[in-house]
């Protein structure tokens, strides 16, 4: 009986969020807002990826825009310039993701902490500058136009609404994979890197492999997200893929709660959608948004998923320490 | 002069000090002994407020100093020479010594006199004044740490495991220095030590800490013959 209750308690939030996700488009009439929801879903995929590096192993990656751009441009260029099938384009993006994982992960074996963060920033900047300036290939500031929409067994995902349901399915799949990884052996190894490099080595785990894995996972997820983004928007240009974008992913990760997959989902949704909600504030909206996020970091550094750990919230709901089930460190 | 009354100290949820009381009278050497992890350093750090006192009080010269900011406590004259020396690696030996006098409103002349005194007491530092602290040997670093403490004109000097990791000859030297400080400046000293034999030999009173509790305390000359203390700490 108790066990069953616990299981229900665990599954209920998932079911409820799924139902909300599925009925949401019924209430959102304007296609512009559906596109926004699509973007939130795409961002969630990338944040789940970022969680592997920054959330679990604690290495701050601020080059996300570069990785995301690589995914977008691989798909966009292959499909528009070479007429490659979009799914092959996606596979190419994944391969690019693996390569980037090695490219960024390799330095992480030697470079640590703030130096690593700077390296990732450098990577993002190099990527953006290359995309802007290699006009022959990337179209420069003009960007890439006319990226075809995805099609699934002949069914065109050519409206934001169709894309939405597809992306919900993808997010579910990616989140499921991520949770399996987080809870599995790799997840434990990632967290061990966060806590102490040396202890890991002494139990015979290959730290370089663990770090590489985390980077590869991150950049594969991010490239997949980038690829979907290109197909969703139909048009991309380098001005999207700035340092600002990288920091936005970090915001999503931390607002939700570092290390937690549900946190990534919450953070990805809020950071994508909140600015739109605040639009009524006109020229103050971005200011108010930034202030809100800063206050949350100061008050709730472990993100919204840690709200249940705040003393007054605990009292309010009569929680005790052990009823939290799967806490996220 | 220092009275610690029934203090409790926690690291997060874990209690490290249980209801410990502790007293140092002016002009005495008090030794604190105990095995690794007994809470000796925690007790010292609590006195200088590097660690928070959860309950209980710490009185210094009649004034309640519990949980005052560390720098205020230092200004009142409690100087703690921490475990592991913690000299400033990026500063020269001379600068390290000078920083020892940071809390005092000293003029140049007084500073020079104090440096003279240090030179006399620690001749091995004399040729090394321009060297960076991080380049000193372990023994020299320990001497520098103690010397730096003296530069602050302590009203109470607390030394945390000054003999740790030093060769036996150097340990002797360190203990000689401690006795000399006592003799020349008449400063009360708290001496935290694993080397219980030597610590008890030079101290007036001794406290024995065990997993956060005071298990024995009293005159060193008497505790030395306590069979349990002998068995556990004096190794004979």
């Amino acid at each position, binding site marked *: 009986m108790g066990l069953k209750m616990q299981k229900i308690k665990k599954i209920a939030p998932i079911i409820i969020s799924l139902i909300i996700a599925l009925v949401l488009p019924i209430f959102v009439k304007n296609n512009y807002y559906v596109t926004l929801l699509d973007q939130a879903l795409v961002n969630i995929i990338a944040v789940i990826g970022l969680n592997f590096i920054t959330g679990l192993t604690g290495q701050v990656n601020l080059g996300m825009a570069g990785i995301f751009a690589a995914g977008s441009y691989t798909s966009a260029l292959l499909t528009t310039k070479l007429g490659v099938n979009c799914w092959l384009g996606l596979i190419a993006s994944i391969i690019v993701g693996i390569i980037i994982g090695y490219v960024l992960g390799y330095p992480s074996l030697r470079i640590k902490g703030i130096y690593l963060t700077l390296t990732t920033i450098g990577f993002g900047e190099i990527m953006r500058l290359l995309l802007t300036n290699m006009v022959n290939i990337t179209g420069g500031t003009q960007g890439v136009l006319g990226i075809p929409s995805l099609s699934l067994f002949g069914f065109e995902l050519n409206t934001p609404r169709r894309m939405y349901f597809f992306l919900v399915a993808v997010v579910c799949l990616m989140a499921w994979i991520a949770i399996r990884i987080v809870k599995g052996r790799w997840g434990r190894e990632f967290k061990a890197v966060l806590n102490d490099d040396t202890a890991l080595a002494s139990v015979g785990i290959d730290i370089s492999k663990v770090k590489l894995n985390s980077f590869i996972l991150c950049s594969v997820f991010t490239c997949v997200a980038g690829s979907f983004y290109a197909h969703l928007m139909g048009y991309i240009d380098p001005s999207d893929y700035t340092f600002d974008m990288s920091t936005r992913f970090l915001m999503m990760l931390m607002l939700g709660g570092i290390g937690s997959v549900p946190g990534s989902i919450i953070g990805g949704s809020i950071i994508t959608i909140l600015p739109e909600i605040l639009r009524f504030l006109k020229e103050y909206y971005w200011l108010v948004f930034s202030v809100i996020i800063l206050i949350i970091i100061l008050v709730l550094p472990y993100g919204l998923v840690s709200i249940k750990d705040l003393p007054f919230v605990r009292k309010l709901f009569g929680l005790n320490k052990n009823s939290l089930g799967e806490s996220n460190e | 002069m220092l009275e610690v009354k029934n203090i409790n100290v926690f690291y997060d949820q874990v209690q490290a000090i249980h209801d410990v009381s502790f007293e140092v009278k002016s002009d005495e050497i008090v030794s604190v002994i105990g095995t690794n992890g007994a809470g000796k350093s925690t007790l010292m750090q609590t006195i200088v407020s590097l660690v928070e006192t959860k309950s209980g009080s710490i009185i210094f010269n009649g004034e309640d100093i519990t949980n005052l900011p560390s*720098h205020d406590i230092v200004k009142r004259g409690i100087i703690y020479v921490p475990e592991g020396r913690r000299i400033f690696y990026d500063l020269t030996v001379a600068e390290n010594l000078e920083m020892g006098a940071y809390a005092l409103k000293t003029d140049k002349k007084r500073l020079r006199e104090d440096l003279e005194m240090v030179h006399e007491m620690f001749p091995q530092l004399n040729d090394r004044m321009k060297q960076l602290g991080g380049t000193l040997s372990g023994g020299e670093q320990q001497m520098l740490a103690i010397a730096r403490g003296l530069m602050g004109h302590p009203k109470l000097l607390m030394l945390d495991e000054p003999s740790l990791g030093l060769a036996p000859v150097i340990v002797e030297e360190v203990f000689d220095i401690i006795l000399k400080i006592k003799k020349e400046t008449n400063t009360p000293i708290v001496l935290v030590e694993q080397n219980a034999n030597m610590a008890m030999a030079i101290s007036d009173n001794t406290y024995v800490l065990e997993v956060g509790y005071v298990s024995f305390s009293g005159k060193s000359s008497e505790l030395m013959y306590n069979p349990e203390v002998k068995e556990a700490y004096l190794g004979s």
Partner: protein
Amino acid sequence: MESFLQLLVSGIAFGCIYTLVAIEYSVIYQASGLVNFSHGQWITLGGFVFGGTMIRQFNMHYIPAMLLSLVVMGIFGALVAKGIFNPLRHLPNNLFVVLGTVMLGKIIIELCRIIWGASAFRIEGFLSDTVKIGGIVFPEVYIWIVIISVIFLVVQAILFQKTKLGKAMRCVASDQKAAALMGINVNRNIIITVAYSAIICAIIGILVAPIFNVDINMANSISLKGFAAGVVGGFGTIGGSIVGGLVIGIIENMYLMIGPAIYKDVVAFVALIIFLLMKPTGLLGKNQQKRS
């Protein structure tokens, strides 16, 4: 040859700016172990306070306008240290400070936009002359950049080597707990250090205003390249910052002799990554372990 010398001139001028940037953020890093990811916006804010308020609004003379801007920025720095750095400093992971300062940067930019307007402007007549010697053009602003940088480095050296405050700052940078045991008020010391850093940011903002105009994006590239300079030189040493700044400034300008100008900005980052891979702690960096 002429173009070589011309490029060397701009290389040195920009190198000085990168050096100042490297120093400005490494003093905070040294003191608190935190990296200020909003330093570019602090520089911008300095430029706006000087150009937008002191000059345009109050019509002040350059010298008092500069001094007053430095004071304003110093106060700003102290407030930020109290409100953001000191609380976040105690959290176990530097992630929090990274995001906290990133958000602070966004807030500053939005405030600049609201207070001073979105369009860039130039400060008429401020360091806008050029001097020509033997075919080589020396913009007035470059000359001042070098002069002010040298003066600043001397002041910094005196402050850190000779004064009690500066030595205390070095103690805090070296070991915070030990510093507290010397009777140093660590929190206050960090506040002073951050204020000092904000003042350097203001100096940079004023010096680059004639080059980039006063604009919310004016510090984007120099702040990132200053990071690179600090890392290339090795975090935290003045010598390292000078070497790193000049290396980045000169390399990226010399590159113009062999490659297309559009990739000039890439050079600094490629240099950064290559340097890091060769020597993960920077050119002059020590393998120091920080103690908490």
